[in-house]
């Protein structure tokens, strides 16, 4: 279940978003250069695709314990101390993720309620912004699911 939500599905989503993005750039270039008909909404949509990819990817990264860290000193800590630090990291991840997801959710509901749209594509702004709420919410969940791995440092 955890793997499905945090590894398998994100993989399909990320691969799909990336390929759609490449196709969009190509279509926009061909549209502009060959047919004098650029996709005026392409830039906005491309950026939003990548933003969704980043924050869904973040939850997957949290599940895999793949966040970039500086490992210079950590590996020299005694096992007991390392466990304590690992616990602090996991707690920090959950606390910050829940906090950010909560803040983000307020932004999303605000933009949803006032019906704000993007200028070129007319996309409801709540949609791209929701990536942050969803990504951080899932990240908190991922860390809780992999709590043991976070404590031991083995994924």
């Amino acid at each position, binding site marked *: 279940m955890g793997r499905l939500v945090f590894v398998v599905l994100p*993989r399909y989503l990320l691969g799909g978003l990336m390929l759609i993005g490449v196709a969009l*750039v190509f279509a926009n270039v061909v549209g502009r250069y060959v047919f004098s008909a650029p996709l005026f909404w392409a830039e906005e949509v491309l950026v939003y695709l990548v933003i969704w990819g980043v924050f*869904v990817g973040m939850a997957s990264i949290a599940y895999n314990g793949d966040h970039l860290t500086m490992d210079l000193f950590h590996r020299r800590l005694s096992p007991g101390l390392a466990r304590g630090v690992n616990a602090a990291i996991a707690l920090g991840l959950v606390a910050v993720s829940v*906090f950010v997801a909560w803040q*983000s959710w307020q932004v999303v509901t605000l933009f949803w309620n006032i019906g704000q749209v993007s200028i070129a594509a007319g996309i409801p702004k709540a949609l791209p912004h929701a990536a*942050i709420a969803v990504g951080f919410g899932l990240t908190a969940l991922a860390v809780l699911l992999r709590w043991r791995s976070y404590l031991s440092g083995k994924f």
Partner: protein
Amino acid sequence: MGWVLALLPLALLALGFPFFLILLATGAVALVAFGQVPPTAIHQVMFSALDKYALLAVPFFIFAGDLMGRGGVSIRLIRWMRSMIGGFRGSMPFTALGAATAFSAISGSTAATVAAIGGLTYKQLREDGYDERFSTGLLISAGAIDNLIPPSIGFILYGIAAEASIIKLFAAGIMPGLVLAAFFGAYILWHATRRGERGRPHFRWSEFWAASRDGIWSIAAPVFILGGIYAGVFSPTEAAGIACVYAIVVVGLVYREVSLAGIFDSAARSLYLTAQIFVIVAAAAVYGWLLTTNGVPAALARFVDTLEVPPWAVLLAINLLLLAVGCVLDTASSILVLTPLLAPVAKAIGVDPIHFGVVTIMNLSIGTFTPPFGINIFVGQAVFKAPLSSVYPGLMPFIAAALAALAVVTYIPSLSLWILNYIG
């Protein structure tokens, strides 16, 4: 406020907290504890940091680099270059450095160069016996050349911030970019010599022809992309996406070394790596936003302005300030915030604004690969899967070489400015 912003991150960093968590936690604590602004600022600043079209070059070039690496494009390109210079001492690192320098004329951002050229050459460097430290150090630092050779997002932002000519800045950056490459090259040569590599120059037409015939689609890739930009078919950011299209066609249809599933896997992996990097970019923006709105960079710039020292020392102080700021603040924010404050200082001591632009961008480019923070470092860490315990030491000699190049460029203005006599 100050001590929280400065000390908390360092402590968490040493303990091995994820980079993004450190920056975000500091930002959250500072906002909630001291801020007058609502904490929704965290969301808003992170979103804003990634809501930038020019950033798209990073995921696309990671994807293109990964596909070319998997699908036999890179290996053929490298084989072709080695058929020409393969016998020389340090030929593989020189190939990588040359590729990064050439690639600078395609891409506008240093991170994209690390992603693309790293994906292209890292494996081959390791197979040739170069260790993790040297290989990652080389590729992560060589990306910095990108900012100096046009197109360059750094110069565009400097031009806007300082109201200086973007066209002149582009021209003025070329030579300093090559100087930086030359200093890296000098270190590579020294390293290769110390390793006991021996040059046995040989060149065989038969070998060259075979490599050329086999690698024609690979060799055409940079020609196609560079040509497309300079013929006005696509913009530098779009070039990254077009490079992916080219890579998909060549590896999928021409070489047929990667299946459809493989292409999909590469796409997913590339966006995953992008997420590893961009999450830090977004979190760093929160930290940078706090610094900016609290006037920290402005106060530092004013401090430099009050120094009663000779011009060369002012320049040195500015260099040190920019290097320090470059360690924590991203290039774009640094330029937008500091340039308008420092450019008048430089002007007052008689430094040409275009030359000062080159010095500024070179400084901040070096900041992209100086520990602890730097986007090139993060790209390298994500793409090469190398621990920082070998990345940081590997970077040191290249930082030294870059600082030497910076000194040369700073104190010999004509290196930057001579070309302006020829472009009117």
